[in-house]
């Protein structure tokens, strides 16, 4: 227990990195996932095909492989550099991996939401002269996203925990920091583990409560 108290600043710092990974890749995933969903319902077969291909490849590849590819493939082989600072560089490379992966799931959830919006809504929008993109942006997506707030919350919850995979390319988030603390405090493995586990619960539990409440409040009445 002393080890946990002594190392508290380090542990909090690690969780701060976890939060940053979650927030940044969560936002990118939301935007890119909605764009992918738009592609998958677009009238252009090329876009539909590209969207379907992307989602099916990324959704069915283990996240660890994607993150390692980002670290070694993008970072080392293709020499994609975001910063001279090595840790900052792997932070952004893991953001790419996490976003690429999570956005595929966001796409499918949003697409399910789009399917709950009655066809008549799109017909009415087209009938007043809105273009395809306006129809999507002003009429379909606002209703679709509101119906899938709860499942989007679950994805965010999963993302919080998935950020630990960034440890594979050396990002000092909670999981990698926990391993290092195990090495330094071999006599306090259980307390340290419990401390980190509690940290994740503190992050994810409010998310679930919040998304549930938001889903009820923003529900579209028909």
């Amino acid at each position, binding site marked *: 227990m002393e080890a946990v108290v002594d190392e508290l600043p380090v542990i909090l710092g690690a969780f701060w990195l976890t939060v940053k990974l979650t927030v940044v890749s969560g936002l990118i995933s939301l935007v890119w996932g909605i764009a992918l969903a738009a592609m998958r319902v677009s*009238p252009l077969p090329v876009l539909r095909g590209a969207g379907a291909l992307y989602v099916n490849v990324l959704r069915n590849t283990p996240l660890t492989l994607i993150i390692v590819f980002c670290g070694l493939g993008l970072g080392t082989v293709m020499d994609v550099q975001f910063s001279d600072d090595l840790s900052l560089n792997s932070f952004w490379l893991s953001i790419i991996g996490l976003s690429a992966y999570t956005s595929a799931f966001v796409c499918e959830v949003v697409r399910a939401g789009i399917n709950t919006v*009655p066809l*008549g*809504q799109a*017909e*009415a*929008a*087209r*009938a*007043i*002269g*809105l*273009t395809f993109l*306006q129809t999507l942006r*002003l*009429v379909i997506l*606002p*209703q679709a996203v*509101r119906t899938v707030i709860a499942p989007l919350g679950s994805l965010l919850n999963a993302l919080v925990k998935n950020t630990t995979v960034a440890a594979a390319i050396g990002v000092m988030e909670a999981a990698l920091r926990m391993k290092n603390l195990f090495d330094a405090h071999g006599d306090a493995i259980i307390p340290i583990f419990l401390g980190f586990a509690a940290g994740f619960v503190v992050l994810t539990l409010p998310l679930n409560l919040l998304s549930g409440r938001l889903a009820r409040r923003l529900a*579209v*009445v*028909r």
Partner: protein
Amino acid sequence: MTEISGSDPLVRLEGVNKHFGPLHVLKDIGLSVARGEVVVVIGPSGSGKSTLCRVLNRLETIDSGSIVFDGRELPAEGRALARLRSEVGMVFQSFNLFAHKTILENVTLGPTRVRKIPRQQAEQRGMELLERVGIASQAAKYPAQLSGGQQQRTAIARALAMDPKMILFDEPTSALDPEMVQEVLDVMVGLAKDGMTMMVVTHEMGFARRAANRIVFMADGQIVEEGSPSEFFTKPSTERARDFLSKILTH
């Protein structure tokens, strides 16, 4: 009734055919609608009336034939099609009000986003239109909070907000409780009196008699008979129309 300017029709359909899979829903349709004319389309279910209405703003595509609106062939897609649709109002059987927007927002969405009219001006006009259809007091509510009749009147105001050259009505009262039918029909009669060009698919024979310049009777995807309301209802010339009228007018 308003006088109808003769020579240059607003809409002209020629040789229009449409299939849904093996079903031939529109068979070689030819029809013109003059400016200011109110055409009421009647006929048994499955006769292609709604499809006829929907091909006019290309919510359904056609397989062959031509549709000319206001002197130009109906555009196939893109911005030109969106522009055409903004000039042709549509009122649906199931209202289709935007569920996440208030009544006033439903009416101002088109003007602000398609016509780029400033919000304040669009809202002022929107309130005038809601006043005209008798629901200005409901402007801040959401569609689900209104009765069917009020929703359909909102849908009419939404169509009017685009200053359309024509409004299509696809069975506008069929989803309404009986006591709400009249309030919607009254608004439509008012529009007809003001000279709006209308095509109305309906089962309301009272409205057809009162407001129509011309009745088009469809059966099995074809226009079987057309004529003035008085001719059509008193002495229909085809067996098919007589049969239809005898079924709906006996009660």
